[in-house]
């Protein structure tokens, strides 16, 4: 679903699948309680993005309001601009190769012209720690 304009409060709340792309800005609590699917906002978004989400992907092309994140599952947030603040336990991280690839496909799918390298990931600290502690080998090389 593509929305040409701005979205109000609660864009994509509790969505279970599919892709929701907004070419303008979005209000507070984008993708709260999300279970699956992808939410893309090309402009700025409000506060409490992804709160209580249990899965899915959020892409923010602009800046973001306070308390970004605080998912309760495997939510991935890609952010291009600045976040007013991150929710407790969330951290910014650089993209891995696989994330760049995934993000590139998302951008093409939503017809958004942007370079995946401009984005950063926002993920829970323990997820980043787990990524760093993961043992690498021949079948799981560290460039993936």
């Amino acid at each position: 679903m593509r929305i040409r304009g701005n979205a109000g409060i609660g864009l994509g709340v509790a969505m279970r699948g599919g892709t929701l792309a907004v070419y303008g800005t979005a209000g507070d609590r984008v993708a709260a309680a999300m279970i699956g699917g992808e939410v893309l906002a090309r402009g700025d978004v409000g506060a409490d993005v992804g709160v209580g989400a249990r899965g899915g992907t959020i892409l923010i092309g602009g800046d973001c309001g306070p308390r970004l994140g605080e998912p309760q599952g495997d939510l991935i947030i890609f952010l291009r601009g600045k976040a007013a603040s991150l929710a407790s336990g969330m951290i910014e991280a650089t993209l891995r190769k696989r994330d760049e690839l995934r993000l590139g496909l998302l951008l093409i799918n939503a017809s958004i012209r942007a370079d995946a390298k401009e984005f950063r990931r926002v993920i829970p600290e323990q997820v980043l720690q787990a990524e760093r502690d993961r043992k690498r080998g021949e079948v799981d090389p560290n460039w993936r």
Partner: protein
Amino acid sequence: MAITSSSESLLNWSLRLPPCDRFVRPPVHTTAATSITKSSGESFELATPFFWFDPAWYQVDVERCALVANAIASCGIVVSVLHSDLAQIDNVDASALTPRMVPHRFDRAGLIYRDFASASFIDLRMALSRDSHGRFAYPINQLLRWANQEETQIDRSIDAMTFPPDWKSLDDMVPKVNQLRRLSSAAVFLSFDSFHLPVMMPAALKAKVDGVIVQISGDPLASIVEARRLIDESENTSIPLWIVTNTALSPEDCVKCFAMGANGISVDAMCNGFLFGSNQLEMTTSERAARSFGLPKPADSHQRIFHLAKQMVDRFVADICGHAHSCGVDRLSNLCPAHLTRT
């Protein structure tokens, strides 16, 4: 008859006896049937004014859930259930349950579009339910049931939302109720905690919901009276008031609640007890023996569960109708405060 203290109790009131100085003809029969009139003017009949508000489906295997849900609904009790509560059973369709209520939680947990089909009620749930530790959270097994995934032995909970994330304020209730009406022809009820009665009731009346459900901790009398007062002061005095209590009410207490202004009462205590029963124990000795030899379960064991449920509900409804009959009314909805007297 005015009740002013919030510490008023049902114990202080009793059913008024018939007069001893003149003849009063008793009604031929007292029925528990009640009718619900939606704000659109359309009305439908319910066999009983009772409902099962918050069954703990996830604590019981799906086969038992489906059996009990069908058995209780067939007795005319409104059952609150989602399709995903009965997940993993291919031949069970929650749409077939009548009357059925769809719990629409803050974060729409477990809800799918199919839930709206053939539902009699949508419960826009503003009251939070707690997990076994008292947190406002969903037990992990409840979430796994909704996601149709394998259940686990891990005791973990996932926090629930505390306000609809797509609402800015309670003013957003009006478009939400309208949206639900477009999605389904069901009556839209709003449920909330009695603690929030002064805030939620005006919002519910403004949104023109088809009914309200008030969750009450402790003695329900004061909350019923307060809720009824707020309704009677509004334009829509016919809006149904359903109550959920955290304790089991006796048939006499139910009649007192109806007299004080309640139109529907939850029977969670009674139905939960039945839910946690055992398919195995409800079989006869020969059926259990046959099952232990690996023979398929006889079809009539299902009928026995239906029979037990019907027996339990019929006895409860008959006791309530009996007490109401002693007050000289032919319908529970005709009970009024004048049928009670302070002791």
